[in-house]
């Protein structure tokens, strides 16, 4: 699956979870925490994106994700 499609899904779901976020400012270098996501918000953004894209990732693999770039890469790896 295209990384840009997954990034767009992450960005869209950030807007759903963090109501007051201007999602046009979100880049691959941001971390979800930088964007104001607490631990529940982060879980929500990731699970919403997995649902949207039909992707399933073993939960502990998310430990290695530090920014949106590594999150997108992880999701892309499991979408193949």
């Amino acid at each position, binding site marked *: 699956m295209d990384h840009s499609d997954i990034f767009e899904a992450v960005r869209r779901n950030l807007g759903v979870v963090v109501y007051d976020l201007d999602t046009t400012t979100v880049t691959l270098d941001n971390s979800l925490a930088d964007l104001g996501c607490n*631990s*529940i918000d*982060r*879980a929500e953004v990731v*699970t919403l994106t997995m*649902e949207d894209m039909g992707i399933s990732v073993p*939960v502990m693999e*998310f*430990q290695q994700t530090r920014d949106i770039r590594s999150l997108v890469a992880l999701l892309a790896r499991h979408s193949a």
Partner: protein
Amino acid sequence: MTGRIGIEALNVHAGFAQLSTAELFEGRGLDRERIGHLMMRARSIALPCEDPITNAVNAAAPIVNRLAPQDKERIELILASSESGVDFSKSITSYVHEFMGLSRKCRVMEVKQACYAATGALQIAAGYLASGVSPGAKALVIATDVSMVDARAGYAEPATGTGASAMLLGDDPRVLALDLGAFGAHAYETMDSARPMPDHDIADVDGSLFAYLDCLSNSFADYCGKVSDVDLRTTFDQLALHTPFAGLVKAAHRKLMREQARATPDAVEADFAARVSPSLVYPSQVGNLCSGSVYLALASLIDNAPYRGTARVGLFSYGSGCASEFFSGLIDEGSRAALAELDIAGRLNARIPLSFAEYTELLAENSRCLVPIENRKIEVERYRRFLDARPDGREPVLAYRGTEGYHRTYEWV
């Protein structure tokens, strides 16, 4: 085979002292904006004269003491679930069995699977009772734990409680009649939280939240695979979930409603208020009771939800490591009457509020609770004002008075 099997009596002991969430945030310099996210008001704090054994006994005693002698004699199985073991070999249950004065013709043991263990124990006990090998038998399942969190736990510190939930199981399920055979399980190895030493917890908060949410979806899917025509919206009148903190339960409910019912945010919010929020009243005043947590939520639900007649409750239990189960049962207006006898709310309200300074002083002593020490003495009298503050003041409670040659010793106060 027996007909109805389930919980005949349910009681929660959540200590004698409490610390408000605001006081703890202030004392630790935590970000107050995150109180809303936790949805916590206070947490129970242990005294040095309390341990997993006193918690278990003080939860179970009001149940056992109300039994007729011939019914007490029919308790044939005691399972204590705990992640706060006091010995590698000897179980918490052996002490509980002694102080409850139960029949010697009894199976006695302890089980462990983090915050899930009580549900595993309950299902095993229910299976034994339903098998018909000993008609009329009763089982006691007690989830008991103590907190080991301190400043290192960050935002988990305000959400962690101490205490025990005790349940008497049998064929007269006045509190909750189990839907036998209606359950879904999901388990796999993961390192989301653990207690590698007797005085220190470790947790990967994000990993634990993911695993909880993942297990909820998968155990619910397994439940739906075993039970025909399940509809999340209509099959269950109420829901009670394991509550590490109330904010997580809100997120979990939102996720399941989105997946199962394609619900809009407004519909999710209304459904949460009606079916879930009554289960969070006690947990938000106590904190996470580990494997007793879902039964504290059930007690909260029965005491606070305005249901009429018979209501089906969907329950979810999750324990790090990890194991989980979604199951269900029926409550009715008799459940409310059965719980009212034990006045859980009255005892929660009687807990004495602590200042942050009093709390940190207790914390240093409490952190030694499970550390194996050959000899130790606890001055129970120092804590008398806490122990005496309970509303049922004349009913004795058990206190830990120290360890002699590795044998833990207790006294009734």
